[in-house]
């Protein structure tokens, strides 16, 4: 067993080391991309000051009624403005794109303006250039042209390349140290967990099942995961700090340059006033102007006008304690985090203008980075957990049997003593299911907003429908693919069915990535849904094949666990990829994940597996035929009440809010896709945290109806923050609570369905089949209802209204439903 343990150490060490190294690399790449963007923002802000000044001067002339072409004096103004660092040229063109003024004389009169240079309204980065443009309007309110600044980012790129090089130099030894540290830690962990591995080995070898309070394998994997988390936290923090430190060196000079730009704008204004003979002490509105600049530039903490004897005449903000520049010279200066500019009247020094940078701005601006690194850590840990579970089981499987993987025994608990070579360790199902669900979950943050951008390709379709229909169709296809898919996978075999599903799904995702037409987008989403539905029902089929009544619930729980883990990882990973690369890339990553899932299952599933169960994982047909089972259920008022006032409204709210309204409302408030993904992640995270507690308590206290009613009202309470505050934490809190509220309902609903099935003498599987179909139809209805509600109000109000529907339905359910007894069942969280 010693050799085996070394092999285990090697495998486990390799997985954890790979996870740690990948996470650190990802953290560094993310940090680099974030800071690159931040640096570009600061440079853009600085250049915008130049652009604004040119626009102000131009529009002043236009207000007098002059034509754009008549503002001859602009040439000199452009020349002056173009002296700012990095500015390559400034052009002013008319509505036909003809350049009227330019700092490059040979461009005047040509049509090389907006279209040739690739200007768009606002900012645009084109390779090594930053393009900024603003429209110009005359006194009649007509747009008469635009002004554009083209900046060369060469200096910045060089500085960034330097930082990148330094980061790489620091990162390589760090990753090596991390790898060594990881292997050592894993070795020590396994050494001190020797008893656990031996116990686990004993289990696998087929001895009597030891009476242990906990599964030794899970304990081992949890322990290893804890080690991974600790390593990741320490090393990622170190990597982020390293990146922050490196970037500050580039960022601060750029921030100082921008502060000087702001100082120039202010001194020009104040000096003009002084030039008119207005005494500085009597100049009204000085504080207001300073305050406006401080609030417009979050990197500036303090601006003040000081007299020559350093008395503060006007100021706004908090002066940082580290400020160092003293007004002992007669010229402007900048050092550390302060900029000092001179205020003069007719070349006579009158006062000082002091600007202080916010020393903690870089750290404050890094909140986003910290959240993203934390998300990457969470994803890495969950992925590592899934892989570790597989590796440990695989290892122990091999160690105990010496045969092919996957033939250990369902749930790793072959305690019968009679080894069944056809059995399949259901732990091996987790990773493929996890990867497959991940392939779809990565698309969650952007489907409705992407549909919104494609909407102009179908002008005849109302925008509301264009946004909601792709999700609705996906849910519908998924719902109907379940009963049909169950039969299909039983017919061609689970392995072939899963492979078919993965191919369909991957093809759907690849085609979705290529399309720029809404109708094609919807068609390919339907294809993806077909594959998704087939894969999930096949996976459930495998659970049913390889479990019996006593351990089926545990088998299904394994499957649900993988689903939920994908729900946590997918949206945030998809959001980050979509932000940093593109939506197309995210969809292609999804396709690769789906194919990887199929490949993994093909490797792990024994070729001659156990003859598949005749029991389908889902059936809408009872012994009396299709109509008989449903007729019995449909005549039971309690079943109707449960479906109408709990199952369907809950799913309407779940898909309506989580998949449809949330991405739309967050995009409206300026959130990026990573932020949307992070918020969606909260739903699954809190569902995972709350559901075991809810299931246990509802069983223990025998109050399922109470939980269902409470969950409905809790859904209403959870969604209220969306309507009450516009703050960024509002959706975060609401979705977390929403996940917890939905967890309250899920298990008790299923228990009630099984209990009702027994009471009305319908097969449990038939009742659950109808329950799932109906609630999924509710899910399909969700986006339509949500967008319908939003059409007459706002996305936020629509979400609160969906909460009201859930709360109101819960009360009606309470009125209609009579108390029934229960039986515990696994739950499903998929909205």
């Amino acid at each position, binding site marked *: 067993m010693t050799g085996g343990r070394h092999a285990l150490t090697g495998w486990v060490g390799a997985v954890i080391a790979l996870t740690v190294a990948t996470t650190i690399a990802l953290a560094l790449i993310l940090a680099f991309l974030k800071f690159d963007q931040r640096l570009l923002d600061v440079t853009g802000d600085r250049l915008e000051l130049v652009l604004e000044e040119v626009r102000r*001067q131009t*529009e*002043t*002339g*236009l*207000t*007098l*009624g*002059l*034509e754009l*072409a*008549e*503002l*001859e*004096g*602009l*040439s*000199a*103004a452009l020349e*002056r403005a173009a002296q700012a660092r990095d500015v390559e040229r400034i052009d002013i063109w*008319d509505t*036909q794109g003809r350049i*009227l003024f330019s700092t490059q004389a040979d461009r005047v009169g040509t049509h090389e303006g907006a279209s040739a240079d690739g200007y768009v309204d606002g900012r645009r980065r084109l390779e090594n250039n930053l393009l900024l443009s603003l429209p110009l*309007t005359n*006194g*009649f*309110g007509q747009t008469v042209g635009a002004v554009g600044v083209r900046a060369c980012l060469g200096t910045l790129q060089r500085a960034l390349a330097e930082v990148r090089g330094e980061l790489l130099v620091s990162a390589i030894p760090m990753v090596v140290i991390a790898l060594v540290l990881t292997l050592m830690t894993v070795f020590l962990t396994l050494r001190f967990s020797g008893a656990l591995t031996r116990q686990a080995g004993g289990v696998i070898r087929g001895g009597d099942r030891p009476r242990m309070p906990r599964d030794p394998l899970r304990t081992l994997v949890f322990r290893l995961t804890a080690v991974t988390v600790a390593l990741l936290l320490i090393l990622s923090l170190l990597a982020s700090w390293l990146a922050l430190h490196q970037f500050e060196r580039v960022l601060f000079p750029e921030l100082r340059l921008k502060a000087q730009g702001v100082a120039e704008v202010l001194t020009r*204004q*104040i000096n*003009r*006033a002084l030039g*008119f*003979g*207005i005494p500085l002490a*009597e*100049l*009204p*509105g*000085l504080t*207001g*102007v300073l305050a*406006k600049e401080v609030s417009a530039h979050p990197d500036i903490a303090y601006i003040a006008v000081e007299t020559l004897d350093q008395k503060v005449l006007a100021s706004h903000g908090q002066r940082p304690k580290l400020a160092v520049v003293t007004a002992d010279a007669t010229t402007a200066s900048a050092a550390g985090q302060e900029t000092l500019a001179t205020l003069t009247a007719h070349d006579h020094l009158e006062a000082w203008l002091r600007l202080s940078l916010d020393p903690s701005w870089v750290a404050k601006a890094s909140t986003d980075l910290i959240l993203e690194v934390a998300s990457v850590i969470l994803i890495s840990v969950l992925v590592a957990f899934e892989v570790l579970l597989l590796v440990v089981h695989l290892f122990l499987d091999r160690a105990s049997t010496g045969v092919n993987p996957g033939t250990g025994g369902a749930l790793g608990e072959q305690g019968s003593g009679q080894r069944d070579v056809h059995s399949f360790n259901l732990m091996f199902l987790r990773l493929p299911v996890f990867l497959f669900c991940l392939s779809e979950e990565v698309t969650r943050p952007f489907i409705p907003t992407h549909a919104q951008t494609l909407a102009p390709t179908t002008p005849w379709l109302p925008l509301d429908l264009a946004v909601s229909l792709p999700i609705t169709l996906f849910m519908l296809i998924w719902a109907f693919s379940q009963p049909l898919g169950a039969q299909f996978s039983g017919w061609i075999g689970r392995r072939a069915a899963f492979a078919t599903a993965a191919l369909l799904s991957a093809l759907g995702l690849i085609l979705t990535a290529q399309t720029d037409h809404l109708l094609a987008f919807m068609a390919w989403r339907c294809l993806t849904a077909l594959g998704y539905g087939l894969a999930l029902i096949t996976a459930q089929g495998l659970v049913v094949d390889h479990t019996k009544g006593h351990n089926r619930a545990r088998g299904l729980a394994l499957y649900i666990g993988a689903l939920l883990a994908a729900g946590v990882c997918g949206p945030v990973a998809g959001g980050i990829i979509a932000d940093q690369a593109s939506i197309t890339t995210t969809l292609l990553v999804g396709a690769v994940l789906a194919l990887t899932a199929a490949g993994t299952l093909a490797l792990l599933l024994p070729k001659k597996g156990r003859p598949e169960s005749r029991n389908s994982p889902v059936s809408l047909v009872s012994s009396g035929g299709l109509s008989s089972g449903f007729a019995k259920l449909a005549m039971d008022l309690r079943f109707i009440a449960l479906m109408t006032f709990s199952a369907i409204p809950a799913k309407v709210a779940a898909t309506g809010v989580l998949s449809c309204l949330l991405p739309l409302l967050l995009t409206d408030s300026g959130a990026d896709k990573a932020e949307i993904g992070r918020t969606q992640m909260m739903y699954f995270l809190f569902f995972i945290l709350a559901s075991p507690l809810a299931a246990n308590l509802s069983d223990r206290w025998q109050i399922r109806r109470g939980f269902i009613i409470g969950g409905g009202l809790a859904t209403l309470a959870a969604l209220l923050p969306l309507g009450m505050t516009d703050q960024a934490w509002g959706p975060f809190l609401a979705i977390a609570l929403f996940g917890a509220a939905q967890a309250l309902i899920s298990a008790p609903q299923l228990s009630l369905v099984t209990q009702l099935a027994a009471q009305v003498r319908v097969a449990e599987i038939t009742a659950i089949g109808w329950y799932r179909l109906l609630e999924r139809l509710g899910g399909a209805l969700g986006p339509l209802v949500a967008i319908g509600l939003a059409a007459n109000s706002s996305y936020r109000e629509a979400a609160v209204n969906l909460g009201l529907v859930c709360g109101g339905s819960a009360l009606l359910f309470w009125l209609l439903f009579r108390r029934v007894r229960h039986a515990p069942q696994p739950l499903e969280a998929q909205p």
Partner: protein
Amino acid sequence: MTALTRRRWLHWGIATGAGLMAGAAGAQDTPTPSRRFRIFMVLGRGEGTNEQGFKDHLARSGLEIDYITRNTGGDSSLLPGIVKEIKELRPDLVYTWGTPQTRAVVGPWDDPDPGPYVRDLPVLFTYVATPLDAKIVPQLERPGGNVTGTIHIAPITAQVNAILAYRPIRRLAMVFNPAERNSLLVLEELRDECARRDLELIEAPAPLTDGKPDPADIPHLIAQCRVRGGELLYLGPDTFITTTHRHEVAAAALAERLPTFSATELIVRSSRALFSLSSSPYGIGRLTGVKALQILVEGRAPGEIQVETLRRFSILINMATARELSCYPPLSLLNFAEVVEV
């Protein structure tokens, strides 16, 4: 003040200068018909910057135009003869400056008798402060009939915004000639605006003798405004106050150390009123020119062309007055203001 001053100011603002017409070539974007047009101009105080802007705009479009100009010089008894002449000459467009001239040419829109008025030729008015109240048009968006035009004063809300931005006050005084219809219409609007903002409006109408105000009363009227607690004097588009006797009004206000705001810029530019928020006359002229092209070149009916004013207004500050009163403009206003030293 002529466009030359504007150009000089503009060149001060943007460093260097060149002629207004420089660079005009090739900037037209409307097709040019080959025929010559005749425009009949009815003016009240001769050709000014407004007309210069109008003519410049049409010249830039490449149209060949013959202008027939008649100036009343404030004598409204000449107007019936001018209307008769228009009817005989039947020009392509009639351009009218100011409310009295426009009213005389087009009459109240609800007067069913078209006899004394021009109702079958396109009429384009300018420098009319309140065309709705003056019954020149029934509505601004689609004025209907044969009339459209431009308004030269900023909306009252924008004017009061500018006053409060310069100086937060509680009591606003207005001195006006009650014999001028324009002034009474503006007074009505100002009453509503002040009530809405909880400002007290001190009204000081000039006493009328034989229906006419006496310039000798001006110093006393303004002193009374001061005594009654007025913190700032509002001067509307009132010919008696801000054009004919602008020097006396500005001097009296200065003597009482009362800051003055005007809805037109002449009294700031050439007398010693403190500041104004108004349209650039040259810009208004150009905007009127845009509408003339819509009628002459595009063949649009005047009744379908919106009556409007500029979207941006000019703040003009007389810094000499500001210094004398120690009443300085806030920096936010000064940034957008044209400054004169008179």
